[in-house]
């Protein structure tokens, strides 16, 4: 290896690609690193900006829910937003106040996102006191021993992957201990200009390694590998020293090892670094965790350490402020939410910052729509490179340089060809989803084709197509379901109708029979006096039923609540009377005749039977309705008649609403030219409409009030059963 590297160094001035012999993965490029622009200055402590902007939506997952209100005073580390419900499923992490101050607004602000979209952000105005809640996460300093415990803490502390993708860290961890055997610490930092991870390793090596130990320990991993590119000798030395120290202090339960990796862009990519360090090539679409590997950025690990040991949520991060447009780049421990322009202004810009700043490095970074966007938890660099005249784009000459440079072994020229021809299905077949948008292909392209931009567009297009397909499939299913439902409802309606018809035919006869048998049954057991009573009751009931019937023919039914309760009361009374009478009669002559002991239970049964019989008789008195049918049909009848009323009322309401809408439209149309007239005029139709609606509603109510009591029989029957 040593021989190879000397050889490569020797020939590289003549043949730069000789450096590709020094690492395992395919492709890669060797750009100008320019890291010294920011490493030559010491780390700047956090500055207090005029305002902190904290977006509620993050790169991944759903929108967090604020738990503070405008005007609230918050302290540093106070929880200000979190997931509405199940954080795990929604991929939301908590947001904490980076300093003390007042929440001055919760409003849409431009996000640090290439789209330039505005989304809801909490705006915090620092009060300068930096009054902090110590140990906000209530950590006792003990290392979590299970993945679950660690995950819970991570979700509460708001830690997401700080290397760039911003995937919530807790969601990355497996639930089963021992699933991960190797934790890889990513200290490669391969992008030009960026040096925040380098400086972090130089200054906080112990915290990083302890964070790694905590994670590896909780996950039951067997080893900890730390990969650092050879162009960071200071970081390598610091980490090596920290490893020895920790091992000497016996604070390293998991064995640790430092690995130097070749300096090549994009060494820091997950697949590239994993392959380089372990020789395991992650398959397309596969996760590192499937292979028992987990990779974490140094900044993430440090945040984990601070959360576990000190109970500190993630509220600040190291950010590189650099670029060719700045006099003195630096690294700053920036509060999350600090606006870009305030940080860049500190670095003594050479020219006014009227050009867009870049978030991230020159290779993968994105231009900001507006320089007053906040530092996010994933922002590693703010780059001020004055725009260069764009090289004129030429047609692809099929030189294949891009293919040689692609670290994922894709065919960039093919993908570009189909992407610009909008043949997105073909682009998809070329595995564009594995493209890491590293920009190596654009970097080497002699025709200066912005290849990555084509891929980003194609990816978005493919994603949208898939979403559309899924939506179409859903619509198809819902439509099919609806058709099936309509079919079923129709069938059910028909079946019901048929059953009803059949019931109407057979029921009256059955009911009379039943009533007769009941009466005769009663007759056999009851005395003559009781029979007389029953007959009298039946007669009375018949009369009542007829009156009911008369009323019904007037086309009104469905008693109001009052009527119903009255009817129920009457029925109850009658039943009680019958019961008393029955008891009285059975008490006197019966005892001699029948040897069976008459219990109150028996008497009550009889009373019930009597009531039933009465009901049945009454029902018979209501030709052609049968007892069982009454509830059903009268309810139906009631429905239709009330439905009629309702229809009327609704029509009135519809008319009212229409008039209303018209009035509103008129109001809108007439606009400003004649406000007084406009308001005066349409207000009359509006009033009219409303009055009409009110009148209609009143009429309906009145009608309902007039409705007669439901036939006693029903109420009685309901009671007695």
């Amino acid at each position, binding site marked *: 290896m040593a021989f190879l590297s000397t050889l490569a160094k020797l020939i590289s001035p003549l043949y730069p690609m000789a450096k590709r012999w020094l690492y395992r993965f395919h492709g890669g490029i060797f750009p100008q690193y320019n890291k010294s622009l920011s490493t030559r200055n010491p780390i700047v402590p956090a500055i207090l900006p005029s305002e902190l902007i904290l977006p509620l*939506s993050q790169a991944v997952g759903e929108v967090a829910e604020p738990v503070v209100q405008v005007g609230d005073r918050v302290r540093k580390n106070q929880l200000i937003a979190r997931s509405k419900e199940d954080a795990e499923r929604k991929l939301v992490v908590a947001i904490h106040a980076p300093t003390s101050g007042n929440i001055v607004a919760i409003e849409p602000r431009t*996000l640090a*996102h*290439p*789209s330039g*979209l505005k*989304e809801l952000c909490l705006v915090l105005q620092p009060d300068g006191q930096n009054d902090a809640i110590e140990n906000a996460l209530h950590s006792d300093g003990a290392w979590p021993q299970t993945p679950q415990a660690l995950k819970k803490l991570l979700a509460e502390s708001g830690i997401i992957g700080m290397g760039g993708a911003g995937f919530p860290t807790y969601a990355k961890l497996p639930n089963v201990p021992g699933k991960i055997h190797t934790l890889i610490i990513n200290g490669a930092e391969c992008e030009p200009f960026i040096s925040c991870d380098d400086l972090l390793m130089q200054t906080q090596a112990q915290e990083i390694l302890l964070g790694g130990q905590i994670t590896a320990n909780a996950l039951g991993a067997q080893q900890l590998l730390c990969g650092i590119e050879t162009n960071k000798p200071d970081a390598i030395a610091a980490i090596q020293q920290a490893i020895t120290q920790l091992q000497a202090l016996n604070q390293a339960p998991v064995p640790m090892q430092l690995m130097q990796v070749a300096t090549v862009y994009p060494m820091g990519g997950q697949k590239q670094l994993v392959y380089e360090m372990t020789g395991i090539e992650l398959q397309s679409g596969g996760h590192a965790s499937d292979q028992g590997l987990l990779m974490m950025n140094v900044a993430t690990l440090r945040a984990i350490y601070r959360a576990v040991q000190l109970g500190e949520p993630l509220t600040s991060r190291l950010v590189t402020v650099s670029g060719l447009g700045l006099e003195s780049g630096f690294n700053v421990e920036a509060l999350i939410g600090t606006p870009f322009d305030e940080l860049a202004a500190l670095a003594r810009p050479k020219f006014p910052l009227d050009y867009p700043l870049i978030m991230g490095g020159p290779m993968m970074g994105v231009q900001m729509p507006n320089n007053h966007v906040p530092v996010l938890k994933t922002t590693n660099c703010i780059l001020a490179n004055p725009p260069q005249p764009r090289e*004129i*784009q*030429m*047609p*692809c*000459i099929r030189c294949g340089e891009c293919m040689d440079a692609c670290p994922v072994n894709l065919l960039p020229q093919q993908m570009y060809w189909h992407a*610009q021809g909008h043949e997105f299905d073909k682009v998809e077949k070329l595995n564009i989803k594995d493209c890491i948008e590293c920009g190596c292909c654009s970097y080497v392209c002699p025709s200066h084709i*912005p290849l990555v*931009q*084509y891929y*980003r*567009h194609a*990816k*978005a*297009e493919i994603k*949208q197509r898939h*979403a*559309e397909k899924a*939506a*179409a*499939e*859903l*619509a*198809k299913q*819902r*439509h*099919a*379901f*609806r*058709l099936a439902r309509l079919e079923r409802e129709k069938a059910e309606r028909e079946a019901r109708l048929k059953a009803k018809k059949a019931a109407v035919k057979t029921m009256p006869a059955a009911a009379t029979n039943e009533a007769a048998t009941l009466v005769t049954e009663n007759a056999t057991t009851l005395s003559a006096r009781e029979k007389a009573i029953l007959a009298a009751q039946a007669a009375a009931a018949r009369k009542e039923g007829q009156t009911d019937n008369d009323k019904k023919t007037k086309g009104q039914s469905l008693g109001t609540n009052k009527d119903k309760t009255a009817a129920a009361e009457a029925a109850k009374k009658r039943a009680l009377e019958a019961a008393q009478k029955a008891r009285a009669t059975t008490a006197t002559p019966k005892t001699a005749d029948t040897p069976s002991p008459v219990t109150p239970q028996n008497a009550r049964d009889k009373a019930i039977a009597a009531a039933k019989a009465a009901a049945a008789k009454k029902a018979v008195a209501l030709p052609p309705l049968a007892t069982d049918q009454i509830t059903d049909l009268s309810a139906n009848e009631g429905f239709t008649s009330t439905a009629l009323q309702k229809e009327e009322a*609704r029509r009135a*309401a*519809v008319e009212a*609403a*229409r008039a*209303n*809408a018209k009035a509103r439209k008129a109001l809108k149309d007439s606009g400003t030219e004649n406000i007084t007239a406009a308001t005066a005029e349409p207000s009359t139709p509006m009033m009219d409409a409303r009055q009409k609606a009110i009148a209609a509603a009143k009429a309906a109510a009145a009608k309902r009030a007039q409705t007669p009591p439901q036939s006693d029989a029903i109420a009685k029957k309901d009671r007695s059963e």
Partner: protein
Amino acid sequence: MSWLQGLEAIGIFLALALLFGLALGYAAVRFKVEGNPMAERLDQELPQTQCGQCGFPGCKPYAEALARGESEVNLCVPGGTEVMIKIAEITGRDPKQMAEGVEENPPIETAWINEDLCIGCVLCIKACPVDAILGATKLMHTVIQKECTGCELCVPVCPVDCIEMRPVATHLKNWQWPEPETLVHNKPLASLLVREG
């Protein structure tokens, strides 16, 4: 004896023909495809808006009619030219221009109900082909945005005109990278040379 040998050859071929015939016949029965595969494939390509602008009561009936060869290939308005070409490919018929006045790639819109005006007449629920409207008699109705296909069938039935179509808002989750402007259209290199020389 040569005629015998000729017979032998004929016999062998007859036997082979019989064998293959049986095998094919068996396969035809054993691996019979249920339903109408072409209609299925066409249905896959249609946008499933279920808007009925094609003159059929939904996408599936149109697909079936296409598979039977009973209708034109250019009737699906939401699908536009793209779907028309796919239909033409599947049915093996000639592509046909979309009808006059059909907007290409219309913006995706969904229905919104003005909830102050809604009188709860349930007419729109009955009109919606995908049950994307939620509501009950005399109560306010609302559209489940996720399910709405933008077919506009609910718009005309509303007695108080309180449904309107609004373009789907761009937010972080559906924002797309724009396509880079191509500075040079990919002409053959020779044409560039000619211009410069």
